[in-house]
């Protein structure tokens, strides 16, 4: 019996390790290869990116063995032969367009993050503290809206942007982002768990509504606010759909969209840019993993 259990545990651990390797692999490769020199990257991956008519290469050609198959081997490298920061140096000091795109991402994400949470705090307070039939219905509407895919929500957003003349400006992405119901949902779920006794005590002392909100509810929500902020940040840092539809000027694209349009001639830089782009996310993750997990746990289940 005991032996069987130990064997089971060893197999379990093996499976865990196998999955762990698969999960880590892409991230590690990207980070590791960002330290390769341009020549080394071209030697290993050059074949993949050299096709000139890149917009056509996925068109299926009838002759399967077309001539572009070269003998040069492409192999994914986990350990650069020589560690160099030359790619980073080029990205940071010689080709400013990547930093501009990074800055575009920041300009889009930060206002959404700050204002979505501010707006959501008020709404969640209202949903948590004053309940009634109409409010439950409104909250239900928020949940439906939260779960709608972009195929649905981007159409109204686009129309509004067109009416307001904000197409091709960041307002067309920031404004809908600010009113996106995700934070409201999570914060309401948390606020509904705050015991009534806290509020009643404050009311006895004659606290105003604003004081109950700002001195009791918001401080109690601190942890949840961090969780929500992380989830919102990750979501918008990753954005692809909105810029593609709202922005016609590719100079305004955030790095998330621009990354896959890196010039074929600059493939050497791709890994460094990709790494720079994921660094804020990884840092946040390493410092705030528990908050992230808590936020996800809160998002599970629709009822508070």
């Amino acid at each position: 019996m005991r032996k069987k259990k130990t064997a089971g545990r060893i197999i379990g651990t093996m499976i865990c390790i196998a999955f762990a390797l698969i999960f880590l692999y892409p991230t590690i490769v990207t980070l590791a290869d960002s330290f390769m020199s341009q020549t080394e990257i071209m030697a290993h991956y050059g074949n993949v990116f050299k096709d000139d008519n890149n917009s056509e290469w996925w068109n299926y050609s009838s002759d399967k063995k077309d001539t572009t198959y070269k003998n040069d081997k492409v192999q994914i490298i986990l350990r650069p032969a020589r560690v160099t920061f030359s790619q980073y140096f080029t990205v940071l000091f010689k080709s400013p367009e990547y930093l501009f795109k990074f800055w575009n991402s920041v300009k889009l994400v930060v206002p959404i993050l700050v204002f979505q949470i501010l707006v959501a705090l008020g709404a969640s307070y209202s949903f948590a503290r004053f309940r009634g039939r109409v409010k439950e219905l409104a909250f239900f509407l928020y949940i439906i809206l939260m779960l709608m895919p972009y195929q649905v929500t981007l159409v109204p957003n686009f129309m509004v942007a067109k009416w307001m003349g904000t197409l091709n400006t960041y307002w067309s992405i920031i404004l809908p982002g600010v009113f996106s119901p995700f934070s409201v949902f999570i914060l309401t779920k948390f606020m509904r768990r705050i015991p009534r006794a806290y509020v009643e005590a404050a009311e006895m002392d004659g606290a105003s509504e604003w004081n109950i909100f700002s001195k009791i509810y918001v401080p109690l929500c601190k942890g949840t606010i961090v969780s929500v902020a992380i989830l919102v940040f990750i979501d918008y840092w990753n954005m692809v759909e909105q810029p593609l539809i709202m922005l016609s000027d590719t100079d305004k694209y955030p790095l998330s969209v621009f990354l896959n349009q890196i010039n074929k001639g600059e493939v050497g830089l791709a890994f460094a840019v990709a790494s720079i782009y994921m660094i804020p996310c990884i840092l946040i993750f390493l410092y705030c993993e528990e908050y992230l997990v808590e936020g996800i746990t809160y998002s599970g289940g629709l009822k508070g």
Partner: protein
Amino acid sequence: MVVRIMNVEKKKKLLKITKSISFLAPSGLGVLAFFIIPFLVIVYYSIIDNPIQTNFVGVKNYVQLAHNQAFLQALGNTFRFSVIAVPLAVILPLLLAMLLDCRIPGKSIFRTIYISPLVVPVASVVLVWQVMFDKNGALNSIIKGMGADPVNWMDSVYNQFIVLSLFLWKNLGYNMILFMAGLGDIPMELIEVAKLENASSWQIFWKIKIRYLSSTVFFVMIISLINSFKIFREVYLLTGGYPYGNIYYLQHFMNNQFEKLDYSKISTAAVIMSIFMVIIIGLLFIVEDKFGKEVEE
């Protein structure tokens, strides 16, 4: 006297409503302005011929869309993707959560690793997938090295599985956390008692754990279904704007209509999609209600 009390009550209620509305106002007005009202306009657009002439055409747009080849293909591809992706997105994370629930050494490290893809932008790692599956890529190098014919992965039926691998890589961690939370909610006493009564671990798994997890399983299923409808970002980053064949999904269709500025098509498609989503979400609510009660009893 009675009248005065009534007035005070009324005043209190009115005050409460005022407070309630004023806290909700910023968010509520924004939601109305950017989502609800324009959505109603879209419903209107879907039943007129075009926004300039505004002739009422009834369900004509819907019928046209139902015969549109590109739309049908996108719809079919999206559904096929969901059918493959959702079961995997439920079973694999459940397995991982169960494994981590057993006393595996280094549990917290494994958890960290499994959820790390959640935070890594797809745009950053997509290069690895490209290098791997390009027709001149690493996988084909290996295949050629073994003397077989290379496969043009991204242009073959395999492309949807490549997209699937990226989708699963990104989403498993999220679902796993939901399952871990669900497992954590199972009362320990129940399992202890079952063990004392010589229940096999198989019985404990099916009769206790799965029963308690049923609402989580269902929730994860629906969320994964919704996430699988959203599949686009991964494909776009892998292949660019216009993929062919198997991986032309609903969002691609929408993007193409946006480019053509075909308002009636975009609006009609959005309305159809939203009706469909409301049905799924309604189902989620009903089942959550039912399962929630079952476990409480």
